[in-house]
């Protein structure tokens, strides 16, 4: 990219905004297709625009390259906004997945998918990211297996897994003596059948 120093400074700002890690000058040169002098000038210009106290974000030179960071003054607000467990309402898919992990743990992802009758990748991923479930090793077939976390118990107000509600209360056929896991797998296969 060519153009004025101001335009280049804008592009560099955009690049540093997107990059999750500090960007070395060499990579900025390649990405912008300009000379090192031009990049240095653009960084100087950007440093001036993002001087501490002027904006909500500042330019930092750290080990490994250049990065944008938030102004320290915003930290208390950032903590209020972001540093808390994410507890948006569970979607139906998440509730189903979480119930399976909670009652059957440890349980593998293929098992979860068989019971639900649909691929459950994104549900498992979201629950992991929110810290409600975690990996608990691998099954003998190599599939990752999952269990619930302490945070899960905390967010559901449970003192332990034995505090989970008695499933017979919600069971449409509580008289069925077969094991819960077998029954769930069977119902799941019926749902998946055309």
């Amino acid at each position: 990219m060519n153009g004025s120093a101001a335009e280049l400074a804008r592009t560099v700002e955009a690049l540093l905004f997107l990059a999750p890690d500090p960007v070395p000058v060499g990579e900025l040169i390649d990405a912008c297709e300009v000379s090192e002098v031009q990049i240095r000038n653009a960084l100087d210009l950007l440093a001036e625009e993002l001087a501490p106290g002027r904006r909500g974000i500042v330019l930092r030179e750290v080990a490994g390259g250049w990065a944008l960071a938030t102004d320290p003054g915003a930290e208390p607000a950032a903590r209020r906004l972001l540093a808390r467990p994410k507890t948006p309402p569970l979607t139906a898919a998440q509730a189903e997945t979480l119930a399976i992990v909670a009652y059957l743990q440890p349980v593998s992802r293929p098992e979860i998918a068989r019971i639900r009758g649909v691929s459950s990748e994104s549900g498992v991923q979201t629950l992991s990211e929110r810290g409600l479930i975690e990996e608990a090793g691998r099954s003998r077939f190599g599939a990752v297996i999952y269990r619930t976390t302490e945070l899960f118990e905390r967010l559901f107000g449970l003192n332990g897994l034995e505090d989970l509600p008695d499933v017979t209360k919600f069971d449409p056929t509580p008289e069925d003596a077969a094991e819960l896991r077998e029954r769930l797998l069977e119902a799941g296969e019926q749902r998946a059948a055309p």
Partner: protein
Amino acid sequence: MRTADLELDLDVFAGPFDLLLAVVLREEISLLEVELGAIVLAYLEHLDEEGELDLEAATEFLVLIAALLELKSRLMLPTEEEPELDLGPEEAADELLARMLEYRRYKDAGEELSRRFARESPYLYRSAPLPIELRRISLEASRQAYDPDRLGVALGDLLTPPPAVDTSHIRPTVSLERRLDVLRDLLGRSARIDFDDAFGGEDRLTQAVTIFALLELHKKGEATWSQERNFGAIEIRGQRTEDRGQIGAGRARS
């Protein structure tokens, strides 16, 4: 070339495809007399000449021919038992037109979404992990946010098998051989049979296969059948040896 311009040369119609659709809509031609198979063949020939597949045109053709097939099958089925199929040709045509318009609505909406997607794709959003000091969430600070019964309810739902599929519309297979046997047996005992008296109580599929068996008997010269007028009684007569040669083929109801 547009599908609509596909030139057809059928027994009952010669001209472009969309004109056929028009005359069918206008009921200038009974769709029952149009061999849809011949249209498909004509289209395949046209594709062969063309040498390459225009997907847009092929889709259009499929939608149109499917509409004609659905319309024709509606016309061929008696309708008294299924109220949702109880449509005259006029309403059936209107319903099909409505379906095609509904499809077009979402096709056009999809194109609009694609344009919007292309317009928005240069805006890039940041996706970076939170700085380490904001990532640490103390377990003690978190409070109950969910009702544990939610899990029980979800598990109960998963334990509930889906409702059994209604299979009442699937009829047992009717064998042509068996219908041939029944007809031969009846004709052996009586020279004349009224179709409705003998088979009126059977289900539709059995009646249809019986008609088919009658065609077979007619071909073999074992029986003739006649129907004075549309929807009138069908009379079946066994063919004694001396009667053979005098063919009076009847027309079935459909």
